[in-house]
Structure formats: structure tokens, C-alpha cells
């Protein structure tokens, strides 16, 4: 399904950071969000994922068809790799985790506790979770942090397979995943104007005006 985002305005901690964000994301395509630190990439992704309300604007796709991968992987240290993955699969009503283990090269680690994984291995497990959600739109926040070159290639292949299957991906990343079908959206032009410049009031200003 096509993701349509229209004139979305998002706020972090009550302060507007982005406004007027508009884009289309077709099935089979990936869109890469670019912008300096603090421009609001994470806030935008969380808003689209339905974790926080937008100040205005509209997202055409319900949160139920999106899988969100944040900085934190949502892993339990005392559970094994397979138990962690099986849990998220069961939550999303799926059973098969083998394909996800193979795709992120976790087969040899399946019985190891997540506490004993390296940072890159944890990240791979966190990304394998996306494969067991069965959801069409992936929202990825810096997915390649702490991944080595081989793992980035592995992840790039997983994203390409997802796109080839009719899914789509919206990601904030600084690393080139080698995705030919990726478009780039620079968030700098959507930066919210300050109050003085006639921009929107934050919740704080509103309370104390």
C-alpha cells in the first residue's frame, strides 16, 4: 500500500521541530530521511508509527501495518536469541522464525542468551524482529548503528527482499545501504519556524502566553 504523509507537523517535548512534511512512499520503494542531528528524524518516525500525536497533518496508513525499529532493540538479556525472536513472532501472530534467523545470520547464536551477544549481534537480532512482524511498512531509526560492513550488507539484502515482496521502508540513516530503489528526503527545509518568525506555538508557550 502507498504511504501518504501530508503536511505533518511534529513536536518533541512540546516544541515543534518539523512542519509541513509531505511525501509519498510507494510499495517496493525505500525512502531515506536525511538531516543533521536534532532535526527531528526520530520524532518524525515515532509520530508516523503512532507513538506520539502529530500537531497537524495526516498519515494515510494505520500504525497496525507498520513495524518500528528504534535505537533500543527491545531484547531481554536473560532470554536466548531464539526465545526473543519467537516472542515477537507470537505477538504478531506468526510462528516461523527460521527464515529471520537465516536472513540475519543468527543460526549459530540461536541458543545464546542476549546478554552474551556483542553490540552488533544484538542489533542484528533487533533487525531480525522486523522479519517476524509480517508488516508492510518498516520504519527504521538508524538501523545500521554498531553493524560491521558484512552485517550492513546482510541488512541491505533483507531490506531489498522486503521491498521486492511489495513492502516499503522509511529509514533515517547516514550509511549507504546500496539500495538502488531508495529515494532521499532532506528534512532541513521542513524545520519548524521559530515563534518569532511566525511559527507555531509550542505547548510551553501556549501555557504561559
Amino acid at each position, binding site marked *: 500500500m502507498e504511504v501518504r504523509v501530508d503536511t505533518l507537523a511534529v513536536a518533541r517535548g512540546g516544541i515543534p521541530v518539523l512542519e509541513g512534511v509531505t511525501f509519498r512512499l510507494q510499495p517496493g520503494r525505500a525512502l531515506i530521511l536525511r538531516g543533521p542531528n536534532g532535526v527531528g528524524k526520530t520524532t518524525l518516525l515515532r509520530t508516523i508509527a503512532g507513538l506520539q500525536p502529530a500537531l497537524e497533518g495526516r498519515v494515510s496508513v494505520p*500504525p497496525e501495518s507498520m513495524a518500528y525499529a528504534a535505537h533500543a532493540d*527491545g531484547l531481554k538479556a*536473560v532470554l536466548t536469541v531464539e526465545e526473543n525472536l*519467537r516472542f515477537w513472532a507470537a505477538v*504478531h501472530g506468526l510462528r516461523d522464525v527460521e527464515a529471520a534467523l537465516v536472513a540475519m545470520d543468527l543460526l549459530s547464536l540461536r541458543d545464546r542468551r542476549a546478554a552474551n551477544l556483542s553490540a552488533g549481534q544484538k542489533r542484528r537480532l533487533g533487525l531480525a524482529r522486523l522479519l517476524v512482524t509480517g508488516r508492510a511498512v518498516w520504519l527504521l531509526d538508524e538501523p545500521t548503528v554498531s553493524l560491521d560492513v558484512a552485517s550492513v550488507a546482510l541488512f541491505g539484502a533483507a531490506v531489498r527482499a522486503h521491498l521486492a515482496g511489495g*513492502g516499503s521502508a522509511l529509514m533515517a540513516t547516514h550509511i549507504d545501504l546500496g539500495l538502488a530503489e531508495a529515494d532521499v528526503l532532506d528534512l532541513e527545509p521542513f524545520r519548524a519556524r521559530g515563534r518569532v518568525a511566525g511559527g507555531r506555538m509550542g505547548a510551553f508557550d501556549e501555557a504561559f502566553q
Partner: protein
Amino acid sequence: MFLQRGSGRGFGCGRDGWAGFGVAGGAGMWALLIRDLRLAVRAGGGFGLGLAFFLLVAVLVPLGVGPEGDVLGRIAPGILWVGALLACLLSLDRIFALDFEDGSLDLLATAPIPLEGVVAVKALAHWLVTGVPLTLAAPVLGVLLNLPAAGYGWLVLSLALGTPALSVIGAFGAALVVGVKRGGLLLSLLVLPLYVPTLIFGAEAVSRGVAGQAAEVPLLLMTGITLGAAALLPFAAAAAIRINLR
């Protein structure tokens, strides 16, 4: 939801919140329950913490009060109930704080399980790990406190019917302080007043049982609190979590 969402079509197992909530959602809640129980019994999960605290209270109180059997027997219902309540309080902040810290709560909030269901399942897991062991251990500790024979049945019954309320109210309190670093103190202060009615009716039921009076009325009132809390508070807790996740 402040955003207006169009009606999107699912991919694989897409569902629209409550409307399509079915077998898979139930399986997801079951998986969550199993995961929470597994986490509790594995190393560092905190299982037994409440039970150990309960044991300490029951062992230390007779040492502090002195060896007069009839004094101990008179205060035993109250001491056992206060001990169980405080033991429950000890592990409350783990209900959501750990899931918040490792990012699981964000992912659960976007999962097909309704957040109200997540709260209910996590409260149930807390009760199974804390309330049930306390209820089972209470008669043994009653012996230490010289609880009269007539009180044991009422003690077990009142704890079995009252501790679910402690877990559900506690889950609500834990939801309110999600995201607050070291929120334990705030959580205790928020939750304690809400625990008072359960404590009063629970201890009263046991006291009346010991005295040979009819104990059904406090027991029924306490059960009413439990049922009301279990029916309403998951919704309040889910709303609190949604706000705290922003």
C-alpha cells in the same frame, strides 16, 4: 489518536485494533504472559523477593513484640496483611520500567495486542509471581504469629481474593511513573492510598473470622474492589502509558 488515519489494508496479518482482534492477539497475550513468567524466574528476575520480605516481616515481628501469644494472635491478621501488601509493593516498579528501558514497551505499543491487554497480562504475571506465592506462604507464617486456628481459611481466602487488586492497582501506578528515573518512591506514594481499602477489608475479614463473627461482608467488599480494579484500571494504565511514551 490525534492523527486521522485512512483505512489501510494489512500486509500478512494486518489488523485494525480491537475490530480485528482475534486468535492471533490472544496468542500474543499468551506469549507475553509466558515471557514475563520466564523473565521472573530466571536469574535476576526478582521472583522470591516479595516472598523473602514477607518471611522477614513474619519472623521479625514476634521478636519485636515479645512472646505473649494472645497479643501476637490479636495482631496477626493485620501484620500478615501489611506484610503481604508491602511485599507486593517491592516489585511493582519492575512491571513496566524494565520494558521501557530496553525499548520493548515502544514495540508492544505498536504491536497487534491492545495496550490494555498488555497491562492486564503484565498485572496477571505480577500476581502469579508475587500474589500467589504470598497467599500460599501466609498460613505457614501465620503459625509464627500464633494466628488462631479459625483464621487460616479466611487468611488464605482473603489474600487470594485481595492480592489481584494489589497487582492491578500496582500496574496502574507503575504505568503512571513509566519513564521516571528511580520512580520507586513516587510509585509507593501514589499506590499506597489506593491499597488502603483492600488492606482494611482484608485484615478485617481475617479478624472477624478469628473472632468467630461473620466475615462475608468485608470479604465481598474487597472482592468488589478487586473486580472493579481489574475491569477499569487496565484502561487507565494503558492511557497513562500512551502519554508517557510520547
